[in-house]
C-alpha cells in the first residue's frame, strides 16, 4: 500500500510535470527515467480582450468608441494591465537512483516575455487630462531567452519525509528589456511636464547598435556579426522542496522554485532620462506666424521631446533579472475506501518583478491506476477568477505520455485564441521513458 501511495505521488509529480516540479518528490522513485521534449506553455493576462473590445450590433467597437462609457471601459481595466507568456522546453531529462537519494539532470530552454501598461494611459485617452498628475512608471516590456542545465537531488529522511533541491545553471541567450523607472506626466492648463527615466537594453553579442550624430541609439542599424546561441548572460537558480506524509494516505508537499536569476550583459544599452515642459509654442510674433515657421517651431518642440524620450547610448552594462518566483503547496488524501481515488488541494503563488503576483488555490480529485493511467481534475479560484484544470497520463510498457491543461472561464475571440477575460492558460505535454 505504501509503495502504491508513493508511486501515486510520483506519478502525480511527474504527471503534472512543471505544475509541481517539487524536487523532493523524486526521492521516492525506485527507478530512473528519461524525459524527452516536454513542452509547457503558460500565458497569464490580468485583463482580457473584452476589456478593450465591445460588441455593438454586428460589429465590435473599442473602448474608445463614443458609445462606450468611461466607466464601462475603464472599469474593466486593472491599475496595471499585464500580459505574461512563458514557454519552457525540456530537451532531455535523466533521472537515476543513487545510493541514498535520487539524482536528476535536465537540459532545456525557456522563453518568456511580458508587457505591462498602466491604466492611466487609457484613462488619458478616454477621458482626458483632468485627473493629472499621472504616474506611468509601470510601463514595461521585456523578453528573455535562456538555456538551463539543472542538477537535482532528492533524499528521503525516514519513511515519511523527504527533501530535495535543484541547482540550475542558466545561460542567457538573448534579452530585451524596456524598464521605466520613472514616467510622470503632469498636465495643467499652462503646461505639460513629462519626467522620464527609463532604460532600454538589448543583448546581441557582438552586434552593436549604431548611434546617430548626437549619440542616440539607432536600433535600426546594427554592425558586427551576431553569434547565435552564445551566452549573453549567466545565472544560477535553485528549487527547494519537501514532501511529508504525516499519516497513511495523506501527503503534503511544498516547494519554492526559481530562486535566483540571470546576470545579463546588455551590450546595446540606452537610457532615456530628463524632463521636458511644454508650455505651448513660444514667441509667436507676426513674423513667426507663417505656416512654415510655425511648423518649424512644432518640429523644434518634437525634437526637444525626442531628446528626452530617445535613448542615449551608454556603455554596455550588467543587469540582474530575477526569474519569476514560484511557490507551490499541495495536499493529497487517498480515499480509504478506494485508494485509487484521492482528494487534492493545491496553492500556487508566482511573484513577478514587473506586475502584480499571480496566485490561485484549488481543489480536485484524482484517479490513479499505477502503471496504466492517471487522471486528475481540479477547480478553484485565484487572482484572475475561476480556474479549472485537467491532467492525465497513460502508460504503455515503459512509456508514459502525459498532458495537462489549465484555463479560466470567459471564452476566447473566435479563431484568434485571445482570451476575453483575465486568464491563466497553461498547457503541458511530455513523454517519459521509465527505466524499470
Amino acid at each position, binding site marked *: 500500500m505504501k509503495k502504491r501511495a508513493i508511486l501515486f505521488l510520483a506519478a502525480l509529480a511527474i504527471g503534472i510535470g512543471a505544475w509541481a516540479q517539487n524536487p523532493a518528490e523524486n526521492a521516492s522513485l525506485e527507478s530512473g527515467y528519461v524525459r524527452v*521534449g516536454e*513542452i509547457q*506553455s503558460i500565458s497569464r493576462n490580468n485583463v482580457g*480582450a*473584452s476589456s478593450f*473590445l465591445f*460588441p*455593438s450590433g*454586428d*460589429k*465590435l*467597437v*473599442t473602448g*474608445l*468608441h*463614443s458609445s462606450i462609457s*468611461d466607466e464601462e471601459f475603464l472599469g474593466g481595466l486593472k491599475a496595471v494591465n499585464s500580459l505574461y507568456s512563458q514557454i519552457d*522546453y525540456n530537451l532531455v531529462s535523466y533521472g537515476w537512483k543513487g545510493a541514498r537519494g535520487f539524482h536528476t539532470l535536465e537540459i532545456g530552454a525557456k522563453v518568456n516575455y511580458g508587457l505591462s501598461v498602466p491604466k492611466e494611459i487609457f484613462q*488619458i*485617452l*478616454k*477621458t*482626458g*487630462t*483632468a485627473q493629472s498628475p499621472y504616474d506611468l512608471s509601470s510601463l514595461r516590456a521585456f523578453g528573455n531567452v535562456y538555456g538551463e542545465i539543472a542538477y537535482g537531488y532528492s533524499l528521503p529522511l525516514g519513511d515519511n519525509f523527504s527533501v530535495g533541491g535543484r541547482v540550475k545553471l542558466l545561460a542567457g541567450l538573448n534579452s530585451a528589456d524596456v524598464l521605466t523607472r520613472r514616467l510622470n506626466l503632469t*498636465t*495643467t*492648463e*499652462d*503646461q*505639460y511636464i513629462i519626467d522620464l527615466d527609463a532604460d532600454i537594453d538589448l543583448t546581441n553579442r557582438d552586434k552593436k547598435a549604431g548611434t546617430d550624430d548626437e549619440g542616440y541609439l539607432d536600433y535600426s542599424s546594427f554592425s558586427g556579426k551576431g553569434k547565435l546561441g552564445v551566452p549573453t548572460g549567466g545565472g544560477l537558480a535553485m528549487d527547494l522542496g519537501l514532501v511529508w506524509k504525516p499519516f497513511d494516505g495523506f501527503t503534503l508537499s511544498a516547494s519554492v522554485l526559481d530562486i535566483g536569476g540571470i546576470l545579463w550583459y546588455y551590450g546595446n544599452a540606452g537610457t532615456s532620462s530628463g524632463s521636458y515642459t*511644454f*508650455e*505651448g*509654442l*513660444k*514667441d*509667436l*510674433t*507676426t*513674423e513667426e*506666424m507663417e505656416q512654415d515657421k510655425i511648423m518649424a517651431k512644432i518640429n523644434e518642440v518634437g525634437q526637444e521631446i525626442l531628446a528626452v524620450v530617445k535613448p542615449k547610448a551608454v556603455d554596455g552594462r550588467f543587469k540582474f533579472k530575477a526569474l519569476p518566483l514560484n511557490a507551490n503547496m499541495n495536499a493529497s488524501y487517498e480515499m480509504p475506501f478506494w485508494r485509487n481515488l484521492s482528494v487534492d488541494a493545491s496553492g500556487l503563488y508566482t511573484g513577478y518583478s514587473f506586475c502584480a503576483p499571480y496566485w490561485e488555490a484549488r481543489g480536485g480529485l484524482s484517479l490513479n491506476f499505477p502503471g496504466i493511467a492517471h487522471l486528475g481534475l481540479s477547480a478553484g479560484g485565484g487572482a484572475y477568477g475561476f480556474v479549472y484544470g485537467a491532467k492525465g497520463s497513460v502508460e504503455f510498457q515503459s512509456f508514459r505520455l502525459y*498532458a495537462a*491543461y489549465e*484555463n479560466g*472561464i*470567459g*471564452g*476566447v*475571440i*473566435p*479563431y*484568434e*485564441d485571445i482570451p*476575453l477575460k483575465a486568464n491563466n492558460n497553461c*498547457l503541458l*505535454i511530455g513523454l517519459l521513458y521509465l527505466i524499470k
Partner: protein
Amino acid sequence: MKRFYILISLPLLWSCANLDYDISNGIDNEFTLFSEEISVPIADIGPLSPKQLLGDTDLGSALGGLFKEDGEGYLVAEKEETICSNPVYLLYLGSLDPTKPMDANIDDFNGNPGASTEGPAGIGLIPAIQDFSLFATNPLTEGMSVSGKLTLSTLPTEVFDKVPVDAGAKDFELFHKTFDGQNIIDAFSLVNMVLHLPASLLEKDPLSGFSSIELGYRYKAQLALGSDFPNTIPIPINDVDLPIGQYRVKDVLLSTEVSNEIPVTLVLESVDVMVKETDDEGNEKTVVSNNVIITPGLTVASGCSGAPVVSPLAIRIKAKEGTLPDIAGLQLNLFVKTPTGEGDKRLNMNQSIRFNNLRATVSGGITFQGL
C-alpha cells in the same frame, strides 16, 4: 512541436469561443478621445504691435493723412507754418539807410495750431503731450535778433526782448514749450514782433539778397484716445477653413492672459462663426452659423508703455446642438474704448499686446475615424 501544441490547444480554445467577439466582422474604427476634457497649452503670441500688425500699411494714409507716426513711434498730429518770410533784397530796399542796422516790423499774427488735431478728434483722439515752438531763420553771415510778445491762450504771455539769432542759422528756436495734460492750444498771437537786422544786410547775404528771413511755428501733438470709438470695428477673418466638423467637437474654450501696453480698452463685443452653405441652386456661400454660440467675455484693459496691464480672456465656442461645423471664417466685432487707470496714454505704434499662455480646453471629446 509548435504546430502540435497549436493543434492540441485550438479545439480546447475554440470550444469557448464567444461569437459576439468575432473580429472577422470588423472593428469599428471610430475613436473618441478625451471624452471629459483635455486642456492643451498652445502658444505665447506676441509681442504684437500695431506697427507689426499693419505691416507696410501707412497708417497716416489709411486714416486720410490725419496723423502720422513720429520717430519714436508715437501717433502725432503736426502742423508747421511760416508766419512771415521776407526776402533780404526787399528788406534792403525798404531800409532808410542800408549802411545802418534796421528794425523790421511784423504784422500781428493770430494762429490756431490746435486745428491740426481737429481731424483726429473726430475719431476720438485727443492731444496728450503737445509741443509748440517758435523759430526763426537767418541766412545772414552776421546775426540778427527778435523781440516781441507771444501769447498762447492757455499759457501766460511770453515776452521777447532782442533774442539773438545765430548768423547763418538754418532754424533757430526762439521759444519751446511742452504741454502735458492740458487742453489743445486753440490760439496764439504775436504782438509787436520786430526783427532787428544788422547793417549792410545785403552784403551779408551769401545769395546777394535772394535769401529769405523767416519766422514760423511748429506744433506737434502726441495723441491719445479721448473718447470711445463711436462704432464697433468689424474685423473679418476670412479663409480660415478649419475642418473641425469631422472631429465632432462640441465645446472649445480658448483662454489666455492678455498683456496690453496699448492705452485703449478693447472689448470684443461679438464673434460670428461663418460657415459655408450651398443654396438650392448649388451656389456655395458663406453665412453666419446659427448653431454656434460664442461667449466672448473679452475685455482687454488698457495699459501703457512699459507698464502692461494683464487681463484674463476666455472665449467659449459651443454648438447649440450636436457638434461644431467646419468653420469657414470669423467675424469679430471690436469695440475700442478710452483707457482706464493712470499712466501714459499716448498711442505708440510700438506698444505691444501679448497673448500669454493661450490654451484650449476641449470638452466632450474629439472623434477620429481610423487612428
